[in-house]
């Protein structure tokens, strides 16, 4: 049986068994990953996998299973299993919400403009080796290097019992460079990446070698860095770090599944003021080319841009089909799953602070003593406490508006409900970075973006 017909049949079987709602998601994933370290290949991996994910909704409970065996008898077994799981899960659910899906199916085929399949595997290995040479030739203090090239192609077909059918064919591409520089017993790491949805064209204008150079330059620059100061500071964040900041500080707490589970400090805050009028926060899965571009989510729902915060007021959460049904909201296309072995949960896509009216240099004016934080290592949040932390790769002391000493390894922390009130200036230089976001053990591609912003009262964990 044709795999798509098998998916359609699976939905019928689940409904015949007694499910109130069912969907089937067919996902094929193929690609190539090359990783080179210190001039030697660490991995050249060919990826090719197909699987079917099945969900049943019964009495308010979800059952989920998946299979990589696309035969009717196996799919029938999986349907029975998903139904049994849903029934067991829903046995004591009192809130008997029905699922609504007032959205049309959507199909998209993103074609790479410069198809990476026209390059041989050897040429991709050479691309990685070339990135490494770029880093090493920059300076003899660059002692150890790694580079990664990742190309993937995902083909998604979703069908549900409310009549929705969607397809998406999405190529993605990512390059990553890491450099370790050493001098006088000190070792520092630099990291840079570039990527998006599409073919090799997503790497322009900042191609693999430029990515490599930036990683090496960061490591070299950090050799001069001192330990960061500790305490409360006015902080200017560069677009990369501000993007991660808004993702962690605010984005996760707006995911409606977290709100419904009683785990978000933003529950009940729709329509209320959460920040200064300077701040507009959006999640937009429709931004083409970006790494978080998700025109169709894993539930088959067409993505649409959501304004989360407008002029400082909380406007909307991010939704899956379940959360939008339970909260009487419109689906936003944020139900995403890592792979066919994972059930969709609410995830961000391209999340960003929108452009403001300030010039970047104006953000530094009048800062008597503060910090300028650049580049991001990672971040995380406790959405209930509203407490978040994010790590910058470089931190400069700012004195009387001027950049002074460079510091390393600083953690910056704040509170969700306070921090947007403390954003007092937003510049106009919006830009995005690709990243991977983890939640409940699932990793999905996202972009985070922002212009330069200035935030008061950020706590920095450094040395006293």
């Amino acid at each position: 049986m044709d795999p798509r017909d098998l998916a359609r049949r699976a939905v019928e079987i689940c409904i015949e068994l007694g499910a109130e709602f069912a969907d089937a998601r067919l996902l094929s994933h193929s690609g190539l990953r090359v990783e080179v370290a210190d001039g030697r290949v660490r991995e050249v991996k060919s990826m090719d996998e197909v699987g079917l994910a099945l969900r049943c909704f019964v009495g308010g409970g979800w059952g989920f299973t998946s299979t990589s065996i696309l035969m009717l008898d196996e799919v029938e077994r999986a349907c029975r299993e998903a139904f049994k799981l849903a029934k067991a899960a829903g046995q004591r659910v009192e809130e008997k919400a029905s699922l609504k899906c007032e959205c049309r199916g959507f199909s998209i085929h993103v074609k790479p403009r410069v198809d990476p399949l026209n390059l041989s595997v050897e040429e991709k290995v050479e691309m990685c080796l070339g990135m490494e040479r770029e880093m090493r030739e920059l300076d003899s203090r660059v002692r150890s290097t790694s580079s990664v090239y990742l190309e993937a192609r995902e083909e998604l077909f979703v069908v549900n019992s409310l009549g929705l059918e969607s397809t998406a064919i999405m190529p993605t591409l990512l390059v990553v460079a890491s450099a370790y520089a050493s001098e006088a017993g000190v070792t520092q790491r630099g990291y840079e990446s570039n990527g998006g949805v599409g073919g090799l064209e997503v790497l322009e204008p900042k191609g693999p070698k430029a990515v490599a150079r930036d990683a090496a330059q960061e490591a070299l620059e950090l050799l001069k860095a001192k330990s960061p100061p500790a305490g409360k500071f006015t902080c200017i964040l560069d677009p990369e770090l501000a993007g991660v900041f808004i993702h962690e500080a605010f984005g996760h707490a707006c995911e409606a599944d977290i709100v419904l589970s009683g785990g978000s400090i933003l529950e009940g805050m729709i329509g209320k003021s959460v920040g200064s009028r300077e701040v507009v926060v959006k999640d937009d899965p429709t931004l083409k080319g970006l790494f978080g571009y998700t025109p169709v989510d894993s539930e088959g729902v067409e993505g649409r841009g959501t304004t989360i915060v407008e002029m400082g007021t909380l406007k909307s959460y991010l939704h899956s089909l379940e959360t939008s049904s339970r909260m009487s909201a419109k689906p936003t296309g944020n139900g995403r799953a890592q792979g066919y072995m994972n059930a969709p949960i609410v995830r961000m896509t391209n999340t960003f602070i929108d452009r403001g009216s300030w010039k970047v240099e104006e953000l530094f004016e009048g800062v008597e003593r503060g910090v300028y934080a650049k580049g991001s290592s990672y971040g995380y949040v406790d959405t209930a406490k509203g407490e978040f932390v994010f790590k910058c790769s470089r931190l400069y002391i700012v004195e009387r508006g001027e950049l002074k000493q460079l510091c390393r390894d600083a953690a910056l922390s704040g509170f969700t409900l306070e921090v947007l009130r403390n954003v007092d200036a937003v510049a106009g230089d919006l830009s995005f970075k690709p990243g991977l976001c983890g939640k409940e053990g699932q990793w999905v591609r996202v972009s985070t973006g922002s212009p330069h912003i200035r935030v008061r009262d950020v706590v920095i964990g450094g040395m006293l």
Partner: protein
Amino acid sequence: MQLLDVCRRAVEEAVRAGADASDAYGVEANILKVVLEKGVVKRASATHDVGFGIRAVVRGSQGYSYSTRLNADPREVAVKAFRAARAGPPDPDFKSLPTPSSYPSISGLYDSKIASMGVEDLVDLCYSLVDLAKRDKVYSINMSVEAVEFKRFVANSNGVEGVDEGTLFAFEVYVTARDGINMASSSEANASRFYGGLDLQGMTLKASEEAVKYLNAKSYKSCTASVVFSDRVLATIFIDGVASALNADLVQRGRSYLAEKVGEKVAVEKLTVVDDGARAGGLLSMKFDCEGTPRGRTLLIDGGFVRGLLHNSYTSGKAGVKSTGNASRVGGDLDFRGRIAISPSNVVVEGGDWSLEEMIEEVKVGVLVEDTDDSPNIATGDLSAMMTKGYAIEGGEVKYPIKQTLFAINMLDLLRKIRALGKRRVKRFGLEAPPIMVSDVSIASKA
């Protein structure tokens, strides 16, 4: 065809295609999971992940491929791995894949009770625990329970063959408390190879009590203080900060802050850290690692000196030593898709002679840190982290929970400034370690 046969065939096909060496790693994992949200079970899932990954080596260059289709011809997968390997330049540092040796027999790694658990058992378990967490101001109770049964298979072109099986049971509880607009949370998580290995009631009660306590959390002050590290943060220090920094690959490439310290004294004399992959009942114990080398016991730090590194076959070949059986897969030991890497197994830190109460009393004014989600920068050893669970110590007693407070210290300073080691060791995931008291930790807070 059995998965071991598939692995064998795949290896043969890779060699037939022209590979100098090859191995295959197969996994069959059944994962049953139930999630309770806001006091009610809402989701149940069953994941059956079956497949094999194959590695082909051509002049030292390593190519990988994998498949979840066991009935398909393994030749196609093997040839893909061979072509991938052929695309890379020669790597003279690659010496050999493991050769056959006998595997240890380790008790306590398989529990038929976990293997036979059904979805109803897990649902009933959640409901039997949820009432324990209910108390005034508790706003939501969330849990997840997971029963996992797995089999691992390995075969290589040197004649290595192995089959291993195991179970594990994982539990996580996350409780939020609310008082008006003020919200707080607390979580507990752990896993065991056997069903009775976790105190589920105790974990649930603790999460609930601490969530409510955290409603009264206050900011701390910015200062330099003595800190008692206990509970989950010990994994950040000893797994992420010590064992992971002694990964031979990072050391050989000069990417670890301990790279130049092998054989040197880096810690106080009383510190002994061991990686023990064959420990009875150990969460990460297995007969063999992800390349088929027997798991073993490796002394990492002894008397404060760096004594050992964690190796796989590549790094041990490069260094001319024996592999320590720490080959892992990127994505975890049950992921046949990822490439070979190096990971710690069970990390065991020898205890000292202090009780936790004695350490707190000794600190007088300082902080008790129990958890952070941060990890050290392995290249520099700098650890700058948010306390996701921490308490102020005043007058030698634990006083109040603290919020929005960060601590920072370099790992080399931390290891040299351990003033006391606890008697009673904490068992969390793959770690068994005592609480430690450390002086001169930098604390940053809003106040």
